[in-house]
């Protein structure tokens, strides 16, 4: 089944169109179509993961046009990993949205959701720079739609910022692509990697400018300081289930940074080698700090989760920015963790907010609410995960990162920042938990339940996330081995290039 | 001969474009600006036609055709806005 590679893109697109067509039918039909689509996508992602696992790089030339001329989809370990992560998260978040009835709060939740998956999967799979742009736009505009889902004044105001900033980002993306095409004459990333290496000195500066502009755009998506400014407010105003899905959105920036830097501007790029990496380390260290510092005074759970997401993505970027195999492997282990942890915090925040409609997700003392015991456990686990404490996978991830950067000249800074911010996160999250669960338990009266009513079924998606994180811990051995293999594949881009362009072209 | 004629015609249309630009910027009324824009569109159509002759190529006529249609819609929309505020009601 060579054609399976296109399934993660085409399948959600068809599902989206179908749920659009059947929008007037019964309510459950839309949800059923969406869930079935997600389930199928999960299976596809698993199959692709299995295929990529042994290191083979599958290349799919769309339209049968040979590699640098047409668009190719490339499935390597990294993309398979990201696909799997996306599908899993999408499945869980969609379940949460359906159970809590979020999909009925506005129009077109299911088509937008599926279209977002189209964009995400496309971005992870494509081997063409401009195609990457297109899928970025698909996922962005779908995210705009989802972000505004349900609406409300603050969401609208934050939406304007989010959209305008990302639009400018897209503009910069195009400038970067344009310059790179103008200089190298190609759009295929593998081909570009070859051509960058052979550029004349006069062209290198331009290619460098293009490279850094691309980096900037990816950094914007990954919320790297100082380009993270849009994220807290956006995520804090988004419906929590949507924000949970958005946890993967920062990762798409990270993915692109990894992909483009390691493939195109990697060791083979002559004077431009690792150019994007040079600025990333200080920026990501600051991101970690600003993210976790912002978590401390946050007024709402979503705001706190958003800042936490910035911080933990920063931690991830710290490891990525070294562009060193061991650190990259550590980052790749941490990546699914931070995605799941961020999503979990948003979902738990939603559970809390739904149970005390008069207080919402504000971090204030409120009355007791239904399932407070279980939710407090969930919150504690989410907090532990986000802060990177044992026994959940964040701790292992942090250990891996700390261990991997030990030899780096900036190790001291990294350690100080990563560990120091962990403390801040612990303090901040403990304050929140104490306010929400301990103080609140004093209040005599029980909370007025949410208008739609709440069920304990709602807890299942969050529990699923926790189980996944536990699985990350228990299976850490094989998973880290796999991450190491992913990292090895990334740092040997010849394999990628040869898979795309044929044997013998690379060096 | 045609070459000279074309050159002169190009110059004429170009100057016409500039004159319309003047009216566009100077106004004074909004109607004037709309009129100037409309005239510029017409001049642009003329330019396209002349360019087509110049290059002996009929590739560009659709652009003229489209411009004729679209320029009209634009002008009307601007006027409708002045008249009613709402261009679709």
């Amino acid at each position, binding site marked *: 089944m060579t054609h399976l590679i296109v399934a993660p893109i085409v399948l959600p697109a068809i599902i989206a169109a179908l749920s659009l067509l059947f929008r007037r039918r019964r309510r459950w039909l839309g949800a059923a179509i969406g869930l079935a689509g997600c389930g199928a996508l999960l299976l596809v992602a698993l199959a692709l993961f299995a295929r990529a696992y042994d290191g083979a790089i599958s290349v799919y030339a769309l339209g049968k046009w040979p590699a640098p001329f047409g668009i190719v989809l490339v499935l390597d370990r990294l993309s398979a990993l990201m696909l799997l992560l996306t599908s899993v998260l999408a499945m869980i978040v969609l379940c949460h949205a359906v159970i809590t009835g979020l999909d009925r709060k506005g129009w077109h939740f299911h088509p937008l959701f599926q279209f977002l998956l189209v964009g995400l999967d496309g971005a992870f799979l494509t081997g063409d720079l401009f195609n990457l742009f297109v899928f970025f736009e698909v996922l962005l505009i779908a995210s705009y739609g989802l972000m505004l889902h349900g609406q409300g004044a603050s969401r609208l105001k934050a939406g304007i910022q989010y959209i305008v900033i990302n639009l400018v980002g897209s503009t910069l993306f195009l400038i970067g692509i344009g310059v790179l095409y103008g200089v190298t004459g190609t759009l295929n990333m593998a081909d570009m990697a070859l051509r960058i290496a052979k550029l004349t000195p006069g062209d290198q500066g331009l290619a460098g400018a293009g490279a850094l502009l691309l980096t900037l755009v990816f950094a914007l998506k990954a919320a790297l300081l100082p380009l993270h400014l849009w994220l807290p407010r956006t995520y804090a105003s988004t419906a929590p289930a949507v924000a949970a899905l958005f946890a993967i959105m920062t990762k798409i920036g990270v993915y692109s940074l990894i992909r483009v830097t390691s493939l195109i501007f990697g060791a083979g790029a002559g004077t431009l080698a690792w150019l994007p990496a040079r600025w990333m380390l200080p920026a990501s260290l600051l991101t970690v700090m600003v993210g976790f510092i912002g978590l401390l005074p946050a007024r709402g759970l979503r705001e706190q989760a958003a800042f936490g997401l910035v911080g933990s993505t920063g931690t991830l970027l710290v490891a990525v920015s070294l562009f060193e195999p061991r650190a990259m492997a550590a980052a790749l282990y941490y990546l699914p963790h931070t995605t799941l942890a961020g999503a979990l915090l948003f979902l738990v925040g939603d559970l809390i907010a739904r149970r005390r409609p008069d207080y919402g997700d504000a971090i204030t003392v409120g009355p007791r609410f239904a399932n407070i015991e279980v939710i407090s456990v969930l919150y504690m686990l989410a907090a532990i995960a986000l802060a990177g404490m*044992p026994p959940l996978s964040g701790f292992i991830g942090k250990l891996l990162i700390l261990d991997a950067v030990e030899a780096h000249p900036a190790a001291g800074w990294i350690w100080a920042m990563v560990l120091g911010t962990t403390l801040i996160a612990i303090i901040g999250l403990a304050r929140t938990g104490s306010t929400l669960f301990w103080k609140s338990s004093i209040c005599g009266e029980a909370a007025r339940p949410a208008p739609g009513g709440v069920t304990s079924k709602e807890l299942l998606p969050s529990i699923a996330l926790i189980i996944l994180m536990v699985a990350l811990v228990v299976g850490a051995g094989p998973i880290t081995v796999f991450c190491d293999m992913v990292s090895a594949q990334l740092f040997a881009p010849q394999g990628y290039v040869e898979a795309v362009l044929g044997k013998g072209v690379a060096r | 001969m045609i070459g000279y004629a074309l050159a002169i015609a190009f110059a004429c249309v170009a100057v016409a474009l500039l004159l319309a630009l003047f009216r566009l910027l100077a106004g004074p009324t909004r109607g004037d600006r709309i009129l100037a824009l409309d005239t510029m569109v017409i001049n642009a159509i003329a330019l396209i036609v002349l360019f087509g002759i110049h290059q002996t190529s009929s590739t560009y006529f659709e652009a003229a055709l489209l411009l004729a249609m679209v320029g009209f819609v634009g002008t009307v929309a601007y006027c409708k806005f002045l008249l009613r505020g709402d261009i679709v009601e």
Partner: protein
Amino acid sequence: MSLFLLFLLPFLGAILVGFMPHASRTTQAAAAGAIASAALVLLLVQAPAVIADGRVSARMDWIPILGLSASLYLDALGLLFAVLILGIGLLVIIYARFYLKASDPMGRFYAFLLLFQGAMLGIALAGNVLLLLIFWELTSLSSFLLIGFWRDRAEARQGARMALAVTGGGGLALIAGLILLGRIAGTYELDGILRSGALIQASPHYPLALVLILLGSFTKSAQFPFHFWLPHAMAAPTPVSAYLHSATMVKAGVFLLARLWPALAGTDLWFHLVATTGLVTMLLGAATTLFKHDLKAILAYSTVSQLGLLTMLFGLGTPMAAVAGLFHLLNHALFKAALFMNAGIVDHETGTRDARLLGGLATLMPITATLGLLASASMAGLPPLGGFLSKEMMLEEAAHTRLAGIDWLVPLLATIAATLSVAYSLRYAVHVYLGRRRAQTPLAPHDPPVGLWGPPALLVAGAVAIGLFPMALAGGLIRGAAGAVIGAAPPPLALKLWHGFTPSLGMSGIAILFGALILAGYAPLLRLWDRLPLPVAKTLFDHGVTALVETSRRITLAIHNASLQRYLGILFLSAIAAGTAGLMAGGYVPGERPTLPASPVAIVAWAALIAATFAVIRAQRHRYVALIFISVIGLVVSLGFIYLSAPDLALTQISVEIVTILLLLLALNLLPKRPLRLSSTPLRLRDGALGVIGGCGAGFLAWAVMTRAPNDPISAYHWTNSYSGGGGTNVVNVTLVDFRAFDTFGEIIVLGIAALAIFSLLQTATRGASGRRLLQWIPDLVRSPERHPMMFVVATRLLLPLAMLVGVYIFLRGHNLPGGGFIAGLVISIAILMQYMASGFDWTDQRRQLDEHAMIACGVLVAAATGLGALLFGRPLFTSAFGHLDLPVIGSFELASAMAFDVGVAVTVVGAVMLALAELSHIAQRAEKDARSEHAMDVDPARQQETPA
């Protein structure tokens, strides 16, 4: 394997107990107790092997890449510690059953307790320092839950958070320290690290690693200046205090010192850091203890002091001191746990813990008093109890230790500390149990049931027994443990009451004497103490946290000021910086491609564009006028595309332009048309400067690329294969629908999503605040009464079919000549939009036979199906096929699958554009105050005839 079982048992128990919230209290206690006993039995089963072989270990790979393995390592030190953890844990479980009130959720308590027990056991058993870290932090987390167990008490919540912050924070330092240590040693396995002490101490990273590890250890063991969390953790239920602060959590730091002793101890740095800290803590804790009145506070500060003692002993670095430390660790666990339980009984039965209110309880609670007196005697170091033995050893070690070049300093300070400890121990005994009753206690005191006094009685019995038969009871264990700590054969060990007349005996005597004297003169001393301006650690800590939060808030608000302008400004600045940095990194050489001459017409058009751009900026507050200028820019850009050989682009630009203008006009109707000026002149200058720099950058990049020769672009392939491979001569279109059809697929999805998002945005616009605002909306223009001018309506009626024809034509020729699905879709949309504009929304809407949602869906489906069609033939997605079809009579047709794809594009475009614009104009209707018109034309002569005015 049984080691793993042992280590997992408490966790399993925690889960078990956690899942039986509805069971009776006794059942829950029994379950917890059974778990703890089972673990204890499992542990003791291992004991002979440990004593015999020195260790028992088990190992399972976990994360080989990291060097983190699930390796368990039970030696005598671990055994000693584990016995304390499990043994005292069992007693605490029993005690708690009787101590906790019926309203306290017992199941939760036991779950937390077992969780904590598991974590502690993990520390004791961990054979890999990374594994140890995991349990280390777990103890912080589970103790957080235990301390905050009475969640409705503010001091419990604060105490829990403080403990978590301090111990968890120290744990973070420990992470760094242990990783460093492991990297120096080359392994994270404990035995590997312990074997490479010389290597470690020679490493340049040793001091840093040591400091970090000590930070972890000191915070956990409440050493000065991190000691303050411990007294506040007393807000926990007393069983918790008995467990956490006698045997377990606080001992973890000391345990770590002992555990890493072979690797770290013995250097000057170690000595100075550890011994000094221990000494200071011992003194300070003891002094503070003396003047506390809350029984639990007395015990807490005494714990601090005793921990200082332990720390100092391990800091001395001599094997004998280590032995003394281990012995005292055992003794302290016994008497301190007993004392906590004892204090709990007093609290439970009298209702108060204030030493100033109590007194003379000996007669009322004889059993409790006996236990309390014996345990405090052990704490005071009175013979013949265990405490005496270990204190003797401590004084002996102190007696020959030099600090800062002064021989008498350590002995003196140690004696003072011992004196103070005698004093506070006696105070506890005397002021509570002896003398006369000082006040009426809330409850009438009497001895508790056996469930409460049984556990401390066992502990006290242990303390007495060890004092009497030290070698028999503890000798083997201590010797084994000492061997494990030192990593070599321990010094000959003689635990006995009578050593002869040694300096330590003298010091001990002095301590007892002066201790009694201090107690006698307690009242004046207390007054003196109260007058000392001592900093209160809690206030400092609270101030610190408040300041941290406040600073964070300031920083966060200062950075995230919700101003789009700032966010964008930073983005633009970063982009400029990135571009510049990239250029600098690679260097720039001017290109040599010959430039094209600019014709006068081009210059005129250019001038028009520039003028219009400036006009837009000038007119930005006159929004309507600015729109007209924007149109000029669009016009010139389209002309430029035509001139520069891009007819497809020109067509697209022209048609997109008009739709955008319509959209903006529709929106502008409801937006303020002439807003106030917001930004000041300096701001505008700044933004202008940013704009100019950015513009120069973009212009320069464009110039630089345009003036250099293309680098063998891949489009040459597209050119040569367009007709032969793609079946069309318009290479741009073939690229769009064939070479890069996938891009186009994404592009129509973008358009479709945009329309859907717009639709769902506007669907709710008529509700809520927005709906009210629409209802109150007053047009800010004076409006003409005529809505549908006759000439316009008639013209559009004729234009609609014509424009649609043009649309079809542009669509069909797209493959070979400029045109294509997108432009066709736009043209058709414009044609229909013209109807909307001319004849009004309602009139047109009734006659329109489109379902835009379905169109978008179908468009995407058609495009996808075209792509998938190729799969049926075993070709990759979006592989196109084309052929010439000869039909009789009609002639030859070219059919390409790409055209079907283009149909999908066109359908989506029409659907998306119509959905967005129709919905937007529908919103404006809400604001309309006039009656809606059913007629297509306001002036219709035909109508006038029928109904003469």
